[in-house]
């Protein structure tokens, strides 16, 4: 019989589980119910008692590693904590959220425990067995996999499951002691991109994709990078959208061409960037395969503004393509959004 452990961790407050952790709890509860098997939840947090209150109503066995040493995301301490939790739970299947904190450590933890790991899991299925869906070749090929060995660790992509939202209560938590190795690394803090304004918003409903066309010559023969920047930032400000970019636009900075100063490689979507999850996506001045095929894989409703009526990458990928110049369209969109606000 399978035994399931869901590993979770607290957010920066140290006393509340992350949304991604609560999504993993939901996935674990579903799987445990389907397999009629008990569920254990492991918590890594500075204050695990508070963090555990959010999952008190799950009825799961709760294990925790607590203390200031686990407030920050470090490989050595986090790996030791996760290892200790799994040793205490002795689970055959370990689910965890695919956050930066857990993606850093979980393969190492699986190795220490003689287990195996698969990551970027988007769905769990199977009638009498456990099967997992994930993508290969940067979201171009989808596969369903299974493992005949245990323990099997799986990191779940964030946004693929509903976050658990049961009643908050007082939880009975078993504290697990961890002997930490000598730590050679310390976390000094966090830094936003140098360009200032934060344009990456994973929780936004909408993604705006900016392509290299924004910094190309316009009908008057001139480049209007400053105006492009103003229009893009205006749209982000009015809608709260997140900003993605094609590789070619981000790369222009290194090639001496006009740039949008707020863009960094972290905005890049596609083969060498991210594949974000948003309900809606609007691509502008973008003519490449990458944003439309790979970067848009997990975008719900998709529209594009493009001067090329025959752009093969938007056909079949976008719901609507407007054949138009993005400059006047976006200026008008921003004006309408501002008017709507006031």
């Amino acid at each position, binding site marked *: 019989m399978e035994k399931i452990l869901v590993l979770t961790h607290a957010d920066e407050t140290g006393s509340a589980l992350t949304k991604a952790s609560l999504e993993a709890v939901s996935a674990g509860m579903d799987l445990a119910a389907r397999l009629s098997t008990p569920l254990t939840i492991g918590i890594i947090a500075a204050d695990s008692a508070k963090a555990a209150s959010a999952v008190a109503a799950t009825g799961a066995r709760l294990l925790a590693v607590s203390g200031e040493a686990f407030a920050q995301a470090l490989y050595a301490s986090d790996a030791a904590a996760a290892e200790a939790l799994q040793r205490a739970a002795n689970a055959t299947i370990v689910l965890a959220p695919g956050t930066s904190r857990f993606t850093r450590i979980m393969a190492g933890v699986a190795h220490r425990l003689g287990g195996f790991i698969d990551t970027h899991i988007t769905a769990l299925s199977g009638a009498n067995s456990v099967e997992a869906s994930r993508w290969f070749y940067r979201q171009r090929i989808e596969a369903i996999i299974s493992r005949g060995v245990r323990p099997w660790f799986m990191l779940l992509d964030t946004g693929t499951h509903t976050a658990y939202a049961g009643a908050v209560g007082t939880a009975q938590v078993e504290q697990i002691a961890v002997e930490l190795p000598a730590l050679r690394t310390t976390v000094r803090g966090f830094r936003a991109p140098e360009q200032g304004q934060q344009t*990456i918003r994973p929780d936004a409903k909408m993604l705006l994709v900016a392509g290299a066309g924004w910094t190309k010559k316009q009908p008057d023969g001139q480049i209007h990078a400053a105006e492009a920047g103003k229009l893009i930032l205006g749209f982000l400000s009015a809608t709260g959208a997140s900003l993605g970019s094609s590789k070619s636009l981000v790369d222009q900075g290194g090639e001496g061409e006009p740039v949008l100063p707020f863009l960094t490689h972290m905005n890049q979507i596609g083969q060498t960037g991210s594949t974000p999850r948003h309900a809606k996506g609007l691509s502008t001045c973008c003519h490449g395969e990458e944003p439309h095929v790979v970067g848009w894989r997990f975008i719900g409703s998709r529209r594009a503004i493009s001067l090329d009526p025959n752009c093969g990458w938007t056909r079949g990928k976008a719901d609507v393509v407007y054949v138009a110049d993005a400059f006047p369209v976006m200026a008008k969109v921003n004006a309408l959004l501002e008017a709507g606000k006031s």
Partner: protein
Amino acid sequence: MSNILHIVVCAGIVPDPLQTLEPVSGPAGPGLKNEMVLPAVLDPWAASALYEAAALAAKNPGSKLWLVSLGPKAKLQQVMMTVAQKVAFELVPIDGPIGGFPDAHSTAAVLAETIAALPGLDKTKLLLFGGWESATRGAGVTLQLVGERLSITDQFQGVDQISLSDDGSFEVLERVEGGKHQVSGCAGAPAVLGWATGNLAEPRNNPQVGMANMRTIMPALAKAKVAKLDANGLSYVSVALPKQQRETRVVKDMTPDQIAAELVEWIGAE
């Protein structure tokens, strides 16, 4: 004052991103149609790691840079014709399967065994570099597993910057959620750094660097050891291309005002 570093970059080869990929099933499991004839490139994030490693080695005289790559010998040779012109390195090729479907644990075991046996490698000076995810399997676990097998417990993923101090300690910027970087300080090597994009542009081709590299690359390829990868219980229930093809409405006859009005309505709709 400079620090002597031993930098090992793990980098696979992947199909050129512009190629159309189609999965096929074979006796050894899933693969890509015409995989061996698809043009290949060095894995993009691992390539960032290689360029960052070369820059770091150049700033610290006496440092050494190895490039460890697992793939079919013929494909490795093809890719190295280009990569060798970018920066100076010593290639350590491993003749093995190509693609994203073999198990990462087996790949890591072969890489770790090869790295541990590198002649002249001082593990106290080791910085293990690679891409934080590949463009094939994209699991982001191989480098971690290699690090664990080499008993390295200072690991960083999604790295965009490393700043080395005179005393050998360094500061690392790792990507975390929300477009931010986590800033960490580490006492020094050994450490594992899985690179994201980094800050360096792709170096221009330098034929002289290429010629110098190829003098050692060709003999290394000739001597490449053969690796067989275990499945470790991994099985594929299905492998397929995504089927979603959207019915695209192409709008050619609307004014900017009309388009804007329609977009604003769409943006506001739940």
